[in-house]
């Protein structure tokens, strides 16, 4: 039982569970969309006084902030209380490729069972880390709001609703993602 909970879970179980999250929120009268919280954060910080886009009643978004707070706790629970016995099992091709661009395999370094130490360990802080967190984060926040949603809003909810705008957004996600993974990321990883 404990082993089943600790995972990793099969992709089909995970997919059904994510759809269940969307339906639980829909049943509560809410729409699954995590990036909206970034706008709410700007409103709480007072950006609405000067910019109309942030002049919203953020209290109506409280439920979503609670959702995000819960997800932090869920990550803690899954990582520390019910840890998976093994690091992420990615394909051999991906491991070979990542090694060729200087990224170690999952679990090879301390704290790298889900994310690589080369980019996310404070002890290995480098220019490539700085660009990843600052530029990467900025693109996520800017792009998600321009596109009107992120993976949860467009790829999961929007495609479930069979709406064309979400399909266009997801195609955009992939154009950007492919360009980054295949062409730009290898250059960023070379920076020390």
């Amino acid at each position, binding site marked *: 039982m404990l082993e089943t*909970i600790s995972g990793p879970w099969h*992709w089909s*179980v*995970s*997919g059904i569970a*994510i*759809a269940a*999250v969307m339906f639980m*929120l829909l*049943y*509560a*009268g809410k*729409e699954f969309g995590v990036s909206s*919280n970034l706008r709410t954060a700007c409103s709480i910080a007072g950006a609405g006084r000067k910019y109309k*886009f942030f002049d919203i009643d953020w209290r109506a978004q409280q*439920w*979503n902030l*609670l959702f995000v707070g819960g*997800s932090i*706790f*869920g*990550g803690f*629970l*899954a990582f520390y209380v019910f840890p998976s016995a093994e690091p*992420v099992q*990615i394909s051999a091709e*991906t491991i070979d*490729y990542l090694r060729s661009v200087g990224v170690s395999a999952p679990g090879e370094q301390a*704290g790298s069972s*889900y*994310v*690589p130490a080369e980019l*996310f360990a404070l002890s290995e802080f480098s220019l490539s880390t700085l660009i990843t*967190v600052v530029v990467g984060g*900025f*693109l*996520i*926040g800017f*792009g998600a*709001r*321009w596109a*009107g949603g*992120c993976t949860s809003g467009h790829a*999961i909810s*929007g495609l479930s609703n*069979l709406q*064309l705008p*979400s399909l*266009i*957004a997801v195609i*955009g*996600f992939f*154009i*950007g*993602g*492919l*360009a*980054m*993974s295949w062409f*730009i990321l290898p250059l960023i990883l070379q920076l020390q």
Partner: protein
Amino acid sequence: MHYFTYLTIGAFFGFVMTKSEAVSWYRIQEMFRFESFHMYGIIGTAVIVGAIGVALAKRFNWKAIHGEDLRLNPKNMSVPRYLFGGILFGLGWALTGACPGPMFVLLGQGIWLIGAVILSSILGTFTYGVLRDRLPH
């Protein structure tokens, strides 16, 4: 009780995202390099189950808890905002290996630098709000 509901759904989401490994930077690289079916399986299953549920909800007029229709509000049709915004988002997603949901889940895993990604993403959203009227939508 109300607060507790959303905290619980969120905790379930964070747990699922970790156990599905969708929060992993490695999984996102593997996906964009087309070297595994894993992420496509997760997203594909969620969308198929979601689409069936949404269609049933429309067909049989299911209601949410307070009696309103159980449905997703459609987005306005246009191309530039979804395409250009989507491309920028995709660049950030593949670089950090995290989208907005996983960013917070990883914080719970003690990946402290992801806190800087979250702050940058708030700054990105703020910048969008400032430039909004000058961007094509």
